């Protein structure tokens, strides 16, 4: 379980140190205070290679992935650096209670070679005599791995991966996109004959769902649900985007033992009176699978729903409050006892 995080020069963070992290960590703060960036810092440092940096671009709505002739990977990656200043070095490190320290350094360096000219239909003038590349270096107690994004001659991007990834699942704030990862997880759970149990966990929060199965329609495999009084099964997302999202979170919690589950805007898509039964089940599954949660939220109702669970097990909870008032994002961690007291006293913690 991750107990401490240290971040330097990543996105909006100049320098952040967070200790006292618990199994269930809830991150609050205004827009732009660094909540999602904290999840990204964790996810990137857990990653097996630099491709994750490109995944983060997509999650942030930066869809462009093409390197134009004369440009370099720094074009794609400069937003990882504090104030986009690539002369600084990004450093992210966390301490796991069992696996020890894991760190990631990202720095920009001269490529030592000529600019890679990518094929283009337009005439593009190359102004720079030599290129710069962004290098990634992961270190754990048992090894290290260096990697960079490579612009290949055919215009595609190349990168290496490393087997020693830290198990982490990032669930973005909206649940658009394919169910492919959830399908793989469900398949694993089903092979272990635990699918019945996980469906019953889903039903505790959403009793209208009677069955969940994988079906093929229009050439795609997808989750379908059987619902009371409906003669046919329907795609889970047709029933509810929220239920689909909850299902994907639940599958990740059950099938990612020892992982960190990073949930951005955890309350998104859920009716307020479902918060407590949903989170109760997720917490149970996380304890069972030794999964740790880092979740951002803007919702006061969501935080209030945690109160009975915090009261029962305060040592399992922490609140991380992001604060942008001191001239740049800062982060403060509070234990479950203080967190519970704040909720009981109706203190505005967001």
């Amino acid at each position, binding site marked *: 379980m991750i107990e401490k995080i240290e971040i330097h020069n990543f996105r909006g963070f100049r320098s952040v140190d967070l200790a006292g992290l618990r199994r269930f960590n809830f991150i609050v703060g205004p827009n732009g205070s660094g909540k999602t960036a904290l999840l990204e810092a964790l996810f990137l440092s857990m990653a097996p290679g630099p491709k994750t940096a490109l995944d983060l671009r997509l999650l942030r709505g930066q869809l462009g992935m093409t390197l134009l002739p004369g440009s370099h990977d720094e074009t794609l990656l400069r937003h990882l650096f504090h104030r986009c200043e690539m002369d600084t070095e990004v450093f992210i490190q966390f301490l796991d209670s069992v696996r020890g320290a894991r760190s990631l350094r990202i720095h920009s360096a001269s490529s030592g070679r000529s600019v890679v000219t990518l094929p283009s239909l337009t005439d593009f003038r190359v102004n720079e005599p030599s290129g710069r590349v962004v290098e990634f270096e992961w270190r754990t107690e048992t090894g290290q791995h260096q990697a960079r994004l490579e612009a290949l001659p055919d215009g595609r991007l190349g990168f290496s991966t490393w087997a020693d990834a830290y198990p982490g699942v990032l669930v973005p704030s909206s649940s658009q996109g394919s169910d492919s990862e959830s399908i793989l997880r469900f398949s694993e759970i089903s092979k272990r004959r635990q699918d019945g149990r996980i469906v019953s966990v889903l039903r505790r929060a959403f009793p209208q769902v009677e069955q969940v199965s994988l079906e093929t329609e229009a050439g795609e495999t997808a989750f379908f649900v059987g619902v009371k009084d409906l003669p046919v099964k329907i795609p889970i997302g047709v029933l509810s985007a929220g239920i689909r999202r909850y299902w994907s979170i639940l599958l990740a919690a059950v099938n990612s033992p020892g992982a960190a589950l990073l949930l951005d805007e955890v309350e998104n898509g859920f009716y307020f009176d479902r918060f407590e039964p949903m989170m109760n089940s997720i917490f149970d599954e996380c304890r069972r699978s030794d999964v740790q949660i880092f979740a951002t939220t803007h919702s006061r109702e969501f935080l209030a729903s945690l109160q009975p669970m915090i009261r029962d097990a305060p040592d399992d909870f922490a609140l991380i409050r992001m604060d942008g008032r001191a001239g740049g994002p800062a982060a403060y961690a509070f234990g479950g*006892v*203080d967190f519970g*007291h704040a909720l009981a006293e109706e203190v505005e913690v967001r």
Partner: protein
Amino acid sequence: MPSRIESRVLLCEGLGDEAFLRKLIQARGLDQFEVRCPKPPDGDREGFGRLLSGVRVGSPSCTAFAVLTDADYDPVKSFREVRAALKRDCASFRIPDRPGVFVPQEHDSLVGIFLIPGQETPGSLDSLCLAAMRATWPDQSRCLDEFMRCTGVTDWDRGKVDKSALRCLLAATCEEDPNTGLPYAWSRKRELIPLSHASFDPVVDLLSRFDALCAEAVATR
């Protein structure tokens, strides 16, 4: 530790104290303070620890928290009770070992325990309000004294006598709502308890010296 406090929070015992402090701050043109009291079921001093630990979670890093409590007629005992409540529920705090001073904490915050009307002066918010009301309503006060004697209330503990007398005077002077309590005493059309009265000056003096007390704590760190 920064040289400037960003936020000032007063933690008081109950809704009556909260209303009083808010109105006093407004009436006397004092700096901006946030005022809070514990939510039920832990009202009064028992709730101070939970309140302080909870309010700190939602406050900026450079915040000074002043726990204000009645000195009653045994200031030493009152201070000990507040200290015990804070020690019980605020494990990560450095709790002051004497009243009237701030002590530096984690996250650049400060915590102090302050007694009303003064650090060694017996009394309470009720006794201050009672003094202000007696001066404003002399005829009713004379009748009140007789009533208190007749009913045997004067034999009670002094703090309880003050509370009872204040409640009776409020009922006797607020025709608009004889059931009114201290939390709503300053929401009436008539001013029942004049905040300009000199009995409140010790509280005003404490709030006026707030930043100086913070600076002293920072300097002696």
